[in-house]
């Protein structure tokens, strides 16, 4: 008990933990962390039990600790709100895979600008309600954009997959064909498959251009280069799918 009281006395809560410590910090992998002092958090949990003993008059709390206790709920709410920002932000970072991070650099920079006051200016005594709201709205907005991008990208990849597994001919196993009849039948089939491929490509074209127009059209030149790289990767995938369709059709022959 004496040790606890000394610990409480030795801490200067007013200067160190509340007014000067920023709400947030970033770790090495650019993920966000709550910057709430873990020792202080332990103390806040512990002190509520000491407070019960204090009611029997057995101990007296030092003044800084009493002041801290009055702010306990306010700190808890802020801590929880900060954790919501951390969860939203890190959720976005985990959502972005590989090259997507480079593609969304402009969006992430925008998000960083919203988060910045929490890392540099706001502390645990600040009124951070509007900051929390702005950050969370911006995170949600970006989350929706990334989600939309990934959904459309998946649709494009699905089309590639369908193209890849398409058999372009229609040869019935065990059927003996007259050569001319075979050629006529297959020509009709190939024409149908051409139309199907046109349809697949249209879906790909629309999905890709919608993503670009909604998310990247007005982004900086670096992002435009990243988009072009992204497009080139898709170009290779489409070429591979078409090759597979031809290859599988020939193997089916």
């Amino acid at each position, binding site marked *: 008990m004496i040790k606890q009281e000394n610990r409480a006395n030795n801490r200067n809560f007013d200067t160190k933990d509340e007014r000067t410590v920023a709400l947030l910090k970033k770790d090495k992998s650019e993920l966000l962390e709550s910057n709430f002092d873990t020792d202080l958090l332990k103390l806040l949990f512990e002190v509520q039990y000491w407070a019960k003993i204090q009611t029997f008059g057995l101990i007296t709390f030092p003044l800084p600790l009493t002041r801290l206790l009055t702010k306990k709920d306010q700190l808890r709410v802020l801590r929880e709100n900060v954790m919501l920002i951390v969860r939203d932000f890190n959720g976005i970072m985990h959502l972005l895979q590989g090259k997507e991070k480079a593609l969304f650099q402009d969006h992430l920079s925008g998000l960083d600008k919203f988060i910045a006051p929490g890392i540099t200016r706001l502390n645990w005594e600040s009124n951070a309600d509007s900051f929390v709201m702005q950050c969370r709205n911006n995170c949600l907005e970006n989350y929706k954009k990334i989600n939309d991008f990934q959904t459309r990208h998946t649709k494009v990849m699905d089309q590639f997959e369908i193209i890849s597994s398409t058999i*372009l001919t229609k040869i019935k196993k065990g059927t*003996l064909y007259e050569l001319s009849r075979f050629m006529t039948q297959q020509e009709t089939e190939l024409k149908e498959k051409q139309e199907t491929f046109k349809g697949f490509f249209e879906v790909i074209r629309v999905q890709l251009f919608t993503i670009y127009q909604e998310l990247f*059209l007005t982004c900086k030149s670096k992002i435009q280069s990243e988009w072009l790289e992204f497009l080139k990767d898709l170009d290779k995938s489409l*070429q591979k799918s078409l090759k597979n369709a031809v290859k599988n059709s020939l193997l089916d022959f």
Partner: protein
Amino acid sequence: MHGDSQEIVPIFRVYTILEKDKTDPKVVNQPSHDMIKKEIGKFIKQIINVTSVVPKLEGVFRKDREEVVEKLKEAELTGQGSQSNNMSEEDKIAMINKKYFFPPPSSSKSEIPYVEMVSKNSEVNNITTYITE
């Protein structure tokens, strides 16, 4: 024809005709081996040609983008939503061009149609040779 299995499965009906009127009758296959080979070659080309309806993704994207960007540029030049009314026309154009910059095609390779790439693909060519052998 063989497909991807080792088992040979016949596909075409071939009639064998013995020429009557000759003292030394010849065996004639209808359609002939050459004819079948020629038609199969044509058929394989038609299969590959299906991919010709798919244009290059980058080329189509550039075209679509150009269309949209031209409209946006025009709107900004004529002042709709413009924030640069006190700029000279040249500066305005330069600023708008910078805003809507997009990297040019890096190589002519990116413009080669898919059908050409597929027809030159070694896997496709190996299977073609295997079928027509």
